[in-house]
């Protein structure tokens, strides 16, 4: 039986999809701004955040409204509560993209400390994880959600490599590089935090699909 409720759930689904696209774009642009030393692009990331904040509020309101009006059960309930959580995670991710843009503005006029290789790689991992998590949400794809969780160790490794290089090869050897190296360290840390938020989304998606809580219980990921 087709329900009017399904149309409203579909609208919510589309809004979350839009939120995911905005968050993904914010990360992409923030790292592009760093690579291209593009002040305007960095500023655009900061300016666009207000719109993302507003969309977060709209989605939250829609979720509360659907719960109040329909008193959803079972998979409908899991979809809406997961949607609310994902919405908040995506807004945090967009905020972190703003942090990256702000760090970029700090160093954009100074000579580049080193060619950027691993930070763009880490940014790619983060973007891929977000896209995967949102696709898993939209398509109810358990395997994709699992893959997203597995990717987090790759992000941790890259962050460690970047951190080690900046500290040992630059800050320890030449103290004058510290102001620029610290900004890059922070950016690497921000990107790694984005991956952490994305794993939260993947865990929520697994709950939504299978009603199985894997958050804080990684061993349950192996259960079919």
């Amino acid at each position, binding site marked *: 039986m087709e329900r009017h409720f399904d149309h409203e759930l579909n609208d919510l689904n589309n809004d979350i999809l839009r939120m995911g696209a905005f968050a993904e774009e914010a990360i992409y642009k923030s790292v592009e701004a760093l690579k291209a030393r593009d002040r305007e692009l960095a500023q655009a990331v900061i300016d666009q955040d207000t719109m993302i904040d507003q969309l977060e509020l709209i989605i939250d309101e829609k979720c509360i409204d659907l719960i109040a009006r329909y008193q*959803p*059960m*079972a998979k409908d*309930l899991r979809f809406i509560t997961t949607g609310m959580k994902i919405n908040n995670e995506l807004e945090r991710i967009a905020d972190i993209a703003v942090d990256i843009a702000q760090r970029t503005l700090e160093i954009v006029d100074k000579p580049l400390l080193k060619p950027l290789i691993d930070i763009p790689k880490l940014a790619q991992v983060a973007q891929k994880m977000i896209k995967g998590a949102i696709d898993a949400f939209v398509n109810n794809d358990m395997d994709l959600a699992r893959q997203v969780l597995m990717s987090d160790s790759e992000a941790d490794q890259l962050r460690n490599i970047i951190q080690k290089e900046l500290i040992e090869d630059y800050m320890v050897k030449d103290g004058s590089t510290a102001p620029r190296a610290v900004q890059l360290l922070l950016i690497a840390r921000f990107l790694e935090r984005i991956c952490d938020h994305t794993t939260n989304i993947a865990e929520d998606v697994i709950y939504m699909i299978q009603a199985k809580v894997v958050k804080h219980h990684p061993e349950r990921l192996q259960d079919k």
Partner: protein
Amino acid sequence: MSKIVTKKLNLWYSQFHALKDVHASFEDKRITAIIGPSGCGKSTLLRVFNRMNDFVDGVRTDGEVLIDGEDILNGRTDLVTLRKKVGMVFQRPNPFPLSIYENIVFGKKIHGETKREQLDIIVEKSLKSVLLWDELKDKLNSSALLLSLEQKQRLCIARLIAVQPEVLLMDEPCSTLDPQATARIEELMRELKSNYSIIIVTHNMQQAARVSDDTGFMLLGELIEFGKTSEIFTAPKDRRTEEYITGRYG
């Protein structure tokens, strides 16, 4: 601990197979909700527990229904004792056309209690347990038919409690009540849970979710799924349960 256990329970109304191989265990001092679409057999199942279906022509039952370990479907069951132990509250409150006092002591008198002081104590205790004492203590001789719908339903519950049952069966007990009265009856059910096993049949899924500890979902005479209410309403295991509770069935 299980209060009522059904094993391979089948029931026919003449040719119509109304209950099909129902296996279930209803726990003591808990509220169990039975949900399902109209005609699925939930009221029939409830009525098996105090043999109310015996009044229906052409009814035939087999399997076992154990209450405290004793099969109530055998020919030796004393129905008066059974219905004292397993009382029933109906959809429409049905007080007798007697005074409030006489309604409450009616069952007790049938069971042989005649001492006025003893009956007074029972009336006070029963009305207190359904939170009606303060409202009605000064008009015990008024007709029960003058009460509001909610008060009548509470009175019917008090009338059951007066004969000290162990199981309360409730068949859509709030379907004629407004939301406030429904909320108060639900609060009463929570109060009563510590002393009785309660089984409620309801069409109102939100009510089942709010008030019960365990839930069973029935469809076409079968008990499809039975489990903790918190799990049935967030993560049902059977697709048919999922479709019914999310409104996709039908």
